[in-house]
């Protein structure tokens, strides 16, 4: 689960073997163990903590989406809260007005947010760096008011109350744990898709555009196409997260998708590790728990505590938690492997 960009290299499996198994196999076993742990975890926690962790995973999916755009492709977005809202309202409207079952609302939300992202990505091609940040900022600012404006569909300021989905009968598990498992499944699929995309040809193209757009274009990379693709994929992920959030929280209203949400995603992305996949989970944890912790530490100035936490993270780990630890762990693993390989050959 915590594969980082550098840990997955083509040379990794040849590095050595432990106890008769290749490093690649061990990585699979590790990932499998983590997944099993994640599946078993909710049964040892209270329903409230399960709910909290579900939110963490939802934020992780959103941050993962932003990582594709900002981390790998270098396009800064301050407006992903708007796409999160678009996903949430797609799910809410389908469930509320059309009686679509909750699970069937996620693919339409993904599709709509992909299209929105591509459409938004086309004009965004003309903007770079801070200018793009401003354009996306406008999106985040406009969204809550747009939602109030189209109140025939969105329920205006009152929002839309959703009927909470029931777990399948006969499974004998409650709603919170069921939704946790659903969201976990989506998160795993999302991470798998992101890994496939980013660790291959597309990922290299995106990184090349980020690092040196002119050189990338000279090498034959279709810059515009890849940038638009990055935008669409990114908003697709974030939109899926939004749909899941609407399902889990059971309510949507414009106040839930303020500018602060968009900024939270960027913060989560930077803290977790901006061009990493595992960093999204750290980002989700940060978004969910740090504001609450800040509130517990100081009623009077939670914003100051939150800001301080952010500063500490960025000073101590400028490349984010996974961005800083990931390569270190990978290097240590390789060294151990080489050491053992050397030892055996003697």
């Amino acid at each position: 689960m915590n594969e980082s960009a550098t840990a997955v290299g083509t040379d990794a499996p040849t590095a050595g073997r432990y106890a008769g198994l290749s490093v690649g196999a061990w990585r699979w076993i590790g990932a499998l163990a983590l997944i099993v742990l994640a599946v078993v975890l909710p049964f040892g926690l209270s329903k409230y903590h399960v709910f909290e962790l579900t939110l963490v995973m939802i934020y992780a999916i959103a941050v993962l989406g932003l990582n594709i755009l900002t981390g790998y492709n270098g396009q800064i977005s301050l407006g992903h809260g708007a796409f999160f809202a678009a996903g949430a309202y797609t799910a809410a409207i389908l469930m509320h007005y059309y009686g679509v079952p909750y699970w069937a609302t996620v693919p339409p939300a993904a599709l709509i947010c992909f299209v929105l992202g591509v459409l938004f990505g086309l004009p965004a091609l003309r903007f770079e760096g801070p200018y793009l940040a401003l354009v996306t900022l406008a999106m985040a600012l406009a969204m809550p008011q747009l939602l109030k404006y189209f109140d025939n569909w969105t329920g205006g300021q009152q929002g839309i109350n959703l009927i909470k989905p029931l777990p399948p009968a006969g499974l004998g598990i409650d709603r919170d744990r069921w939704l946790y498992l659903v969201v976990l499944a989506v998160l795993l699929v999302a991470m798998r898709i992101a890994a496939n995309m980013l660790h291959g040809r597309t990922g290299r193209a995106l990184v090349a555009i980020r690092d040196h757009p002119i050189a990338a274009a000279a090498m034959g990379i279709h810059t515009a196409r890849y940038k638009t693709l990055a935008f669409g994929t990114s908003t697709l992920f974030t939109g899926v997260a939004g749909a899941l959030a609407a399902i889990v929280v059971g309510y949507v209203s414009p106040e839930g998708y303020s500018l602060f949400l968009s900024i939270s995603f960027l913060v989560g992305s930077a803290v977790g590790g901006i061009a990493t996949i595992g960093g999204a989970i750290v980002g989700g944890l940060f978004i969910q728990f740090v504001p609450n912790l800040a509130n517990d530490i100081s009623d009077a100035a939670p914003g100051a505590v939150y800001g301080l936490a952010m500063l500490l993270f960025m000073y101590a780990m400028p490349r984010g938690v996974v961005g800083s630890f990931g390569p270190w762990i990978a290097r240590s693993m390789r060294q151990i492997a080489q050491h053992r390989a050397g030892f055996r050959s003697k």
Partner: protein
Amino acid sequence: MTMKQTLAWGLATAGLVLASGLAFAAGQYGPGATDTEIKIGNTEAYSGPASAYGAIGKAETAYFNMINEQGGINGRKINFISRDDGYSPPKTVEVVRKLVEEDQVLFIFNPLGTPPNTAIQGYLNDNKVPQLFVATGADKWNDPKHFPWTMGYQPSYRIEARIYGRYILKNLPNAKIAVLYQNDDFGKDYLIGLREGLGDKADKLIIATQTYETTDPTVDSQIVSLQGSGADVLLTAAIPKFAAQAIRKVYDIGWKPTHFMTNVSSSVGAVFKPAGPEKGIGIISAAYGKDPTDPQWKDAPDFKEWLAWMKKYNASGNIADANNVYGYGVSYLLVQVLKACGDNLTRENVMKQAANIHGLTGPMALPGITISTSPTDYAPIKQMQLEKFDGNTWQLFGEVISGGSGS
């Protein structure tokens, strides 16, 4: 009987006694209540766009501190857990779940805001947790049939507008009414309430309506067009910024309607001073609480008590901020409900007592305004009194008018 059987019987009996003991205790206490403590949950916008209302949560904390210092309620101290939701509904859901499931509060008291309350209404009713005296002006909280665990507090926008309608019907029977309202639920509630107050005359009397969006720069063109309709009564349902614009424009174009202004924008400091106080002379609004800046109350016993409490327990609060009056009043009401619960502090009984208030007079309420509820009436305050702006402050006039439905 073998030794083993005796033991089994003994254990079973002991278990039964223990269980009945527990059952007895559960009859007396719901979650969060003990012999020494009543745990109460609250969500408030201490941060975010509505953080000005955070003063309410601080006032409530200060009020319960006073109650605890005076010995609590029937010997039980109030443990008031007030958490920030930043006025973000998803956060409210999370915070309320934490209060109910982790902190195990007896009930949720005075959570702030229409969207946050809408977000938690289903959860709290499903779990039979009281959502008591919610801090919002929407009308939907008085629905005991569908949401028996949710109860309102202040007069809703609709109740207020009904009062204007009833006043117009009685005193200005030939009025030609124009309405300027914000194009959302807040504004629309005024139009609905006004029509209800006017009854079957509504279609005849209301001759023009105009809306604005909160994103509009001004409401000047709307005012001009309403004047053009020939109306002689204007009802403005606008938030402070646009209310001030409306007052100024009406004056500047020389229009002299009988102007009714929503209670939301009745602040002298935030609306009338920016508009120019002389331009607002004669405007009518409605109130149910005492304005702390109004000099006519300075010798009233309840105002003196409130001021002493502000100085001793809520010293960081602003004396001119009506939110401190609000928090004080609603906390007083809760304490009366808890006193009435006696030693039966279950969620059911809290709700039962809250729905059984008859003609209670709260502190800092206008004379004649009383609080009443019943199992079919979950709107505690339904009366208001009209007031007229004299260029400096509000002057009450006429009698207390009920805006309850049906009457």
